[in-house]
């Protein structure tokens, strides 16, 4: 599967990355080289192998639904780029 420049732009946006037009050609080339390597996957006969999501095939541990986290909101807000009235601030979304 080979990507063209438009597809690369689309993927970049999905990943919330921007690519300068001047870099687009090179990025497309690099990603296609990498995908060339990944496309070897298609040639492997995996038979009825189960997809392996966890290296130890353990099941997800559950715990009681109790609050265990302490309130660190002040510490977390202190390191945020922009805050106000106990909120993280971003540019206006709704006028």
């Amino acid at each position: 599967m080979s990507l063209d420049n438009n597809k690369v732009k689309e993927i970049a946006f999905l990943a919330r990355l921007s690519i300068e037009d001047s870099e687009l050609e090179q990025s497309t080339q690099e990603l296609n080289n990498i995908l060339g390597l990944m496309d070897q996957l298609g040639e492997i006969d995996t038979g009825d192998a189960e997809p392996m999501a966890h290296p130890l095939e353990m099941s997800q541990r559950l715990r009681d639904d109790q609050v265990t986290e302490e309130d660190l909101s002040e510490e977390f807000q202190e390191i945020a780029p922009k805050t106000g009235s106990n909120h993280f601030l971003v540019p206006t979304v709704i006028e």
Partner: protein
Amino acid sequence: MMHNLTIAEQIKGLKNREFSSLELTQHYLNRIDDSKLNAFISVTSEQAITQAKMADSILAKGNASSLTGIPYAHKDIFCTKGIKTSAGSKMLDSFISPYDATLTEKLNYQNMVMLGKTNMDEFAMGSSNENSYYGPVKNPWDTKKVPGGSSGGSAAAVASRISPFATGTDTGGSIRQPASLCGITGLKPTYGRISRYGMIAYASSLDQAGPMTRTAEDSAIILNVMAGFDTKDSTSANKSVPDYTQNLSKSMKGLKIGLPKEYFSEGLDKGVEKVVMKAISDYETMGAEVIEVSLPNSIHAIPAYYIVAPCECSSNLSRFDGVRYGYRCDDPKDLNDLYLRSRSEGFGDEVKRRIMIGAYALSAGYYDAYYLKAQKVRKLVSEDFKKVFKEVDVVMGPVSPSAAFDLGSVKDPVSMYLADIYTLSVNLAGLPGMSIPAGFSDNLPVGLQLIGNHWSEELLLNAAHQFQLKTDWHNSSPVD
């Protein structure tokens, strides 16, 4: 000189009052000051001196734990409260962690002394340390060469004796490969052995922390305090921790060593092969039995890993959005502009490449062909090992196809990925793996890789220690 002592020797030295933790710490801080390897991103001298004084007072009272007062270097991927934690990225250049990683807490609890945070490939993505926002680390054996990566700063620090041990993380070889290229002992434990809480995530189903030391004995001493169950990490294994120093002296007689023929095919540097084969014959001399085995799917580990890891990374790194912490671009026009520019300006090229590959492989219409298929291949890779471990106790082979290469010499990402061939399978299967110094090729260190079954760290450390009793490679030093 104090910096030539192993941790085991330093523990005795502190206990017998031959030197204080403050003297030891100051000695290392001076060495770091003189070092030109760029191994550290932050040196935390003031905190280190405070911790050393505290350790000395605890030692004086006689109620110290075994590692009290021992200095170490912490990979800059582990959160350290009140101290910059960058993961080698511009994205986190200003990030002062508000909390400690579980591993940091554990080392603090021992009253160990943190000298600083070590340099690394950005978000642990890389095999040469050239992907760090803070510039590459230099190999102490030849400063024109790479130290390996991603834990390159940690490996260079231990090899050049500017820290007695360092923490590392290994997602596809990031402890073992730099350990090999810098001539030290690196252990990647079984997945789930050491808590991942507060360890900045790259690929969560593969990431595992481990010790980087000069000797296997030191590695065992450190693993004793690093390992253990943690309720804060949902993939941490609830399994008791043995005393890893207890079985180091067992004989190698009758040990069955598997040599995977796929690990000795074309692409392996002749000099590296020679060193590895000599090490294996040393094991035979010690009474071990060598058996040829096959890991037929190991070649497929490369495409499987380079799908699974980027998919997990594209998901994990979506948290870096310029909103709650880390880098934010100047004057964002709107929310999308904030995301796009913060991420594009904050991440380096390799990180962006892997995020894009992951985003593509997970996008609608491609998931089955890439991610699902890669997970099936992962199963095959894992099954290969399962079969082999019915026949042998430990698998041995090279860590890396070559010794350290020149800084700036590998520009193509695909070539860099292909060099991870011998290390990736271990992470895909969640197995423990080790690199130990086994000799030199063209005056550069070469590591021998030991791979064990799940939870066989004791056996790996035992085998590594026995090798180090018979050989002197681990004592070779690039510095006086």
